[in-house]
C-alpha cells in the first residue's frame, strides 16, 4: 500500500485537545495533594510524571501513525503482542497488592498496568480473526470460540487482579466487535441468556462489588461510609453550576474527593469548569468517537474496519463509564477517563489506540 493520504486531522485535534485538558486538570486536581505527599516544593509531581508519559505515548502514537499498516495486520506481531500482554497480566497477579488490587507491575521508577495495554492488543487480535473469517461469524468453532476464549482468558486474568471495570469494558468491546461482524440475533439472544445471570452472580460474589452497587443506588444513605466517594463527586459537580468555580478554585480536591486526579477527574472538571467545561469535554469525546467510527465506516479492508471500531468503542466505553460513575449513574468502577485521568499506562494505551486510528484513517477516502 503505497498510497499517500493524510490522516484525519480532526481526530488528531480532538485527541490532542483532550490530552491538554487532562494535563491542566491533573495539575489543578493534584497540586495540593502533591505538596501534602511530597512537600511544599512539589506541586508539579503528578503533572510532571504525566508529561513524561505523554512524551512516551506521543512517540508511540507517531510511530503507529506512520507505520506501514500491513505490519499491524501481521499475525506474528499481533500474537506476540497478545502473548506479551498476557504475560504482563500474569506477572501483575504476583505483585503485592496496591489498594487491594493486583493491577500493576511495579518497576523501580514507574509502574505498568498491563490491563490497559491488553485492551488495544485484544482488539487487534479480534480484528485480525474477524477480518479473515467474517462470513463464518455465526460458526461457533471458526470465530466465536477462538474470540470468546481469548476474551474470556484476558478478562479472567484482569478479573483475578480484581479489576472488574476493565474486564467488563474488554468484554463489551469484544462483544461489540462480534456484533458488528453480523452475528445473528439468535446467537445474541442465547448469549444474553447465558451471560446476564453470570454477570449478576459475579457482582454479588464479591462483597466489595456488592457494597459499591448499593452505595451507588443511594449515596446519601451512608454519606461517610460506602456512599462517600459518590456523594463527594456529586457535591463537586453540583457546586460547579453553569460556569464552575474557575480553574484551580475547586475545593473538593482538598481531600474530600478521593483520587481527584485519577478516577474522579471529571468531577473536578465539573466543579471548576462548570457545565460548560463538562459538556464541552463530553462533546470532544463524542466528536472523537464519531471520527473513529467514520474511520471504520470508510475503511477499505475489514481489518481496518474492525480495528477502528474496536478501538473507538474502547475509548467511548471507558469515557462513558467514567463519566457515569462520576455522575453516580454507575457504581464505582476504577476506570479512568481516557487521556484525561492521571495514569501513564492508560494514557499510553489510549494514545496507541489514537495512533492506530490515525494510521487507519489515512487509507479511508
Amino acid at each position, binding site marked *: 500500500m503505497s498510497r499517500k493520504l493524510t490522516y484525519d486531522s480532526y481526530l488528531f485535534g480532538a485527541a490532542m485537545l483532550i490530552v491538554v485538558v487532562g494535563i491542566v486538570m491533573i495539575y489543578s486536581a493534584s497540586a495540593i495533594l502533591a505538596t501534602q505527599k511530597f512537600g511544599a516544593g512539589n506541586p508539579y509531581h503528578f503533572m510532571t510524571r504525566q508529561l513524561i508519559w505523554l512524551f512516551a505515548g506521543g512517540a508511540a502514537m507517531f510511530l503507529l501513525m506512520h507505520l506501514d499498516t500491513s505490519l499491524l495486520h501481521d499475525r506474528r506481531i499481533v500474537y506476540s503482542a497478545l502473548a506479551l500482554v498476557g504475560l504482563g497480566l500474569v506477572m501483575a497477579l504476583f505483585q503485592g497488592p496496591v489498594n487491594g488490587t493486583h493491577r500493576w507491575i511495579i518497576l523501580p521508577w514507574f509502574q505498568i498496568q498491563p490491563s490497559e495495554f491488553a485492551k488495544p492488543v485484544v482488539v487487534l487480535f479480534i480484528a485480525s480473526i474477524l477480518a479473515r473469517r467474517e462470513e463464518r461469524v455465526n460458526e461457533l468453532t471458526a470465530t466465536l470460540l477462538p474470540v470468546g476464549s481469548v476474551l474470556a482468558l484476558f478478562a479472567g486474568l484482569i478479573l483475578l487482579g480484581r479489576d472488574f471495570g476493565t474486564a467488563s469494558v474488554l468484554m463489551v468491546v469484544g462483544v461489540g466487535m462480534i456484533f458488528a461482524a453480523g452475528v445473528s440475533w439468535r446467537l445474541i439472544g442465547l448469549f444474553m441468556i447465558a451471560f446476564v445471570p453470570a454477570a449478576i452472580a459475579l457482582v454479588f460474589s464479591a462483597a466489595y462489588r456488592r457494597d459499591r452497587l448499593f452505595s451507588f443506588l443511594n449515596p446519601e444513605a451512608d454519606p461517610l461510609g460506602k456512599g462517600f466517594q459518590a456523594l463527594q463527586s456529586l457535591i463537586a459537580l*453540583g457546586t460547579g453550576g453553569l460556569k464552575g468555580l474557575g480553574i484551580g478554585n475547586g475545593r473538593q480536591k*482538598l481531600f*474530600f474527593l478521593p483520587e481527584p486526579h485519577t478516577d474522579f477527574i471529571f468531577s473536578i472538571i465539573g466543579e471548576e469548569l462548570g457545565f460548560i467545561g463538562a459538556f464541552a469535554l463530553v462533546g470532544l469525546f463524542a466528536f472523537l468517537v464519531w471520527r473513529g467510527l467514520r474511520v471504520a465506516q470508510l475503511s477499505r479492508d475489514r481489518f481496518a474496519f474492525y480495528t477502528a471500531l474496536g478501538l473507538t468503542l474502547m475509548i467511548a466505553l471507558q469515557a462513558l463509564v467514567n463519566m457515569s460513575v462520576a455522575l453516580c449513574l454507575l457504581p464505582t468502577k476504577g476506570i479512568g477517563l481516557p487521556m484525561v485521568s492521571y495514569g501513564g499506562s492508560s494514557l499510553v494505551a489510549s494514545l496507541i489506540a489514537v495512533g492506530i486510528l490515525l494510521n487507519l484513517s489515512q487509507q479511508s477516502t
Partner: protein
Amino acid sequence: MTLSQKRVIQIFAVLAAWAVIVIARLIQVQFVLHDHYTNRAQRQQERTLALNPMRGSILDSRGRVLAESVAAESVYADPQAIANRKSVAARLASVAGLRMSAREVEAKLRSDAGFVWIARQIPLAVADEVRKLKISGVDFIDEHARAYPRGTLAANVIGHVGVDGEGLAGVEHSFDSYVRGKAGKVTVLRDARRGMYLVGGEGANRPVDGNDVVLTIDGVVQFIAERALANVVTRYRAVSGTAIVMDTRDGRILAMASLPTFDPNRFGDFPPASWRNRAVQDNYEPGSTFKIVAAAAGIEERIVTPSQMIHCGEGAIRIANLEINEHGGHRYGLLSFAEVLAKSSNVGTVKVALALGDRRLYDYVRRFGFGERTGIELPGEANGILRHISRWSQVSVASISIGQEIGATPLQVVRAMATVANGGMSVQPRIIEKVVDGEGRTIATPKRAEPKRVISERTAAVLNEMLKGVVEHGTGMQAALAEHVVAGKTGTSQKAVRGGYSADRFIASFAGYVPADRPRLAILVTVDEPKGEQYGGVIAAPAFREIAEASLRYLRVTPSIPQRSITVAPPLLAAFSQRPVAAERSAVPDLRGLDARAAVARATASGLTVEAVGSGVVTSQQPGAGEALPAGGRIAIILAGAM
C-alpha cells in the same frame, strides 16, 4: 449499506443514547440540584469563625485603667484527631498553668464533637508551654482576656465580664454595647483532614474594637473610700457596708465602695453576693439621716425654726398603738429644734412631722428623690421603698420622719444630703463621664436631668447651720475635721425583722458634706450589723472623717479653717498605686524571670515607669528588688533569651 455498517450505526446509537443520559444527568446535577449540593459543600468545606473585637477599657476620671483587654490564647482540641486520649490528657495536665487535672482534661476529650475547649483565655506564657508539647489535635485561638489591673478597686462599680466577653455586672454590663465593639466574622475553608486551609479575604468582616468608658470615679478617692470602709467593716466585724463620695456641685460620683467585694479578675472564686453594688442595688432603712427631710420640710413650710423650743417629753411618744422611743433611753425634755437634730431626738422629729401631716411629708420625701431611681448609669438600681400616701397608716408619718418604714438606697441618701449642700438644688448622680473612641474623641456623653429645686436656698442655709451643729456638738462630733467645717447627720437604724425591729442588729451610718460653707463632697458611710457598737456617730462618723480628710487633701481643697501648722499629706498616692502588690510595700518589685508584658504590668502596678532593653525574659533590673524607689520612679530592665 452492508450489515456491518448498519450494526456500527446501531452501536453508535447506543453510545449516543448513553451520552444523552450523561448530559441529562449533568444538567440535573449542575443546575437542578446546584443549590442543594452547593449547600452541602459549604457545610463540609466552610467554617465561620467569629473574630472577637478588643473590648474597650474602663478608665477613671484621670485616665487610670480600671479594666482593659489583654491578648490571651484559648486552647481547643479535636477529640476525633486524638488517638490516645489518656496520654494526651496527662501531658496537658502536666502544664501547671492550666490548673486542670488529667481526669478533667480526659473528660473533655471524650466528646464526640470535633471541637472542645480545653482552656479559655489563658496567659500567652501558659499557651506557649502547651504549644511546646506539640500535641497534634490540640490548637490555639487568639482571644482577649479581661484584666482588671487594680484588682478589687471599684470592682462593684465596674462589674465583670463572662468568658465570652459579655458584661455581666456593673458598668461592664450597663455600657456593654459601647465597650463590646462589633464581632467580626471570617469564613475559613476547611479540608477533609480538618486543617484550616484558607482564610477568605473578601468575605471577612473585620471586628470593630469597643470604645473606652471614662468614669467619674477617681481611683484615688475610690481607694480612700474603700480603705476607710474596709477598716470600719473589719473593726466592727460588720456584715457589709457602703461608702459613696459624690461631687455636690454636679453629681459626679468620685467613689462608690461596697463590701464585701471581689476581684473581677477571678470573679468565679467569690460568692455572687460579693458582686453586688450595694450602694445602688440595696435598700436599707436610713434611720436618723432621713430626719433632714422632715427638718427641711418643717423649715420650708414655716412650721418650725431652729431656735423654736420643742418638748421632747419623757423620752417617748405614742401615736395610735405605736410608741416611739429615743435612742439610748434619753429623756431630753425641752429642746430647740436645732438641738433636736443635733441630738437626733426621735420625739422632737416626730412632733414636727405630725405638724406637717401626711401630705406635706410625702411630697417632700418624693421631692428629695426617694422612692424612685436616681437614673445613675448602673444596672440593677433599686427604687427604694416608699409606700404611696393612700396606703399610709396612722403611724406612717411618724415612722417615715425618723427613717423607718421607708427603704432607700445609699445613693438616694447621699443625693438628699447633696441637695442641702447645694442650696436646695438636687443634682442627678452620675458615674459615666463620657465614652471615647480609640482616638480619644468623645462619642457619647450621657444625658442628665437639669438640677431641680427641692427646697429654697434659705431653708438650705438654715439646715446647713443645723447640720454643722450636729458635727460641732451633737451626735456627729467624730466626723469633725481639723481643716474643714463638716455638716452631716448620723444614723442608727434598727434592722427591720419579722414583725418589728431587731434589738441588736443595726445599720450605723453617717451622711454629710464638706466643706460645709463651700461644699465640694457629699459622703455617706453605712455599716451593716456592726458588732460591739451601734451608733452611727461612733462607727460611721470616723470613717466619714477619714474619707473626707484624705479626699480633700488629695483634691487640694484649701482648708476652710485657718491652720496653725502645715500638715504634710501622707504618701497617699504611693499607697494607692502599690495596692495590687500589697506584699512589697514601697520596695522595687522583683521582675527577674518575667516576660516583658508581665514585667511592665508589675512595675506599673507599683507606680514605676519601665525602660526595657532586649527581648525575652528579664535577666536583670536596676535598681534591684527590694530597694526603695519613689512612686513614678524609673526602673531599667534588660531582657534576654527565649523562654
